[in-house]
């Protein structure tokens, strides 16, 4: 059974429809890339999957033992975070917050999980450092470690490499790929970078004037990819 099922979704805000009749499924272990032009509704789709926004029509359901609150999320950086005084440890640990319920403080298991994910992301030396003093790539890894504290099953990444230089971008993609291949974590990634999507993803969802959902081999032959590429060249 699929981990995430989107049925007949209509997305939009303030009564304005951006996208309608969207159907797709994500299975455990998939690596799905969501591509599309600016304004095609990628971010709105992301918010809908996360439950931050309700769809205008249709529904998002989870299966395969996945609960809605178990979707880890790597958001784009906000203005608030840029000058936020917080240590790496505090931020990673806050990923455990969703499971706390009314329990006020973190317990040993939470702290062990946070340490493990800090190690996994190669951040041991930076644990006590201040988040705002880290480089862009390091900040992304901190947020990734936090997302891993919230889930062991599925990660949603919103433009994870925007603003990173080419070397750090490649490292970030490798890290995500490792999480997918080695730890079996399902990846859903919004991306502008079609080449990277082609290299790493197993499936592609293209939204916009034409909608495509399927394997990347089929996507390469489709009209959607052709027009998207062409627009990318002229832009």
């Amino acid at each position, binding site marked *: 059974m699929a981990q995430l099922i989107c049925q007949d979704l209509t997305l939009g805000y303030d009564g304005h429809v951006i996208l309608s009749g969207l159907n797709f499924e994500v299975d455990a272990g998939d690596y799905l890339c969501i591509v599309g032009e600016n304004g095609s509704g990628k971010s709105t789709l992301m918010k809908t999957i996360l439950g931050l926004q309700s769809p205008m029509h249709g529904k998002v359901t989870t299966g395969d033992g996945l609960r809605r609150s178990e979707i880890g*999320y790597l958001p784009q950086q906000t203005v*608030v*975070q840029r000058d936020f005084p917080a240590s790496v440890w505090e931020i990673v640990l806050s990923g455990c917050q969703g499971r706390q319920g009314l329990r006020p403080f973190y317990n040993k298991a939470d702290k062990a999980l946070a340490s493990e994910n800090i190690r996994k992301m190669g951040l041991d030396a930076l644990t006590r*450092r201040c988040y705002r003093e880290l480089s862009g790539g390091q900040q992304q890894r901190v947020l990734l470690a936090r*997302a891993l504290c919230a889930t062991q099953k599925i990660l949603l990444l919103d433009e994870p490499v925007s603003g990173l230089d080419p070397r750090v971008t490649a490292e970030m993609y490798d890290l995500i790929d490792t999480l997918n291949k080695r730890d079996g974590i399902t990846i859903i990634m919004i991306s502008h970078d079609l080449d990277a999507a082609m290299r790493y993803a197993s499936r592609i969802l293209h939204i916009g004037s034409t909608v495509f959902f399927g394997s990347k081999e089929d996507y390469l032959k489709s009209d959607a990819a052709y027009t998207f590429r062409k627009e990318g060249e002229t832009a």
Partner: protein
Amino acid sequence: MTEMFEKLSLYMQYPFVRYALIVGVLIALCSSLLGITLVLKRFSFIGDGLSHVAFGAMAIAAIFNMTNDMPLMLAITILSAILLLRSGQNAKIKGDAAVAMISVGALAIGYLLMNRFSKSSNLSGDVCSTLFGSTSILTLRKSEVWLCVVLSILVLIVFVLFYNKIFAVTFDEAFARATGTKASVYNLLLAVIIAVIIVLAMNLVGSLLISALVIFPALSAMRLFKSFRSVTICAAVYSVLTAALGILVSVLADTPVGSTIVAIEIAAFAVCWLAGAIKGGVRR
């Protein structure tokens, strides 16, 4: 020096000075804790805005000759706080503009009502003392002191119990909501606490200077420290020290309490800023 201490110990025998010290320190402590979240959420001016709302509510209470204006002030201020913090998410009028609008509007309506309906002979004096809190902290009654102590302790307990949740919601509300934290509930909680603190703080520094109690401790602590916990502790200590010092200086030098506290906070901020710059410079 000894002369100063003698004068001080003489003043300390008066209950009103002790009351002022207790209430002042408690309010300063509470507002500094919440101030960090507000500054980081870009709501620095909410203290100013809500205190003007409380002023408007006070004017309404005065018209109806209410002997105890606290409940009405609390109710109206809490309602406004909820509206303001909620509007931050999906409003047509953005956070800072909404705060400015409510702030100016409540101030104008409050003064209009007081001017039209007040039976007091010294209207401008009344308005001045509500806005600048010139003497009210020195005229506290015992019951008000107790109310303030109980509410402050409640605020402190809630803050400690929800510290981790407040951090999560302040740092990244979208992530917190997506992973199952009930962010809207905690935003509501924050709004209520902030409103309570502001109504309490009006007794101390008056409505115009409340912002200072909210902003200065957080900003000063952020110059010096780099983790959320150390900033929180530093802000609390900073706030308690400056408030206590301000009240003592104002008693000794016979200056208005609120303005004195703010003047000291400005000086302390300058020290923190300088210390932060030197510290940062050395590391680099």
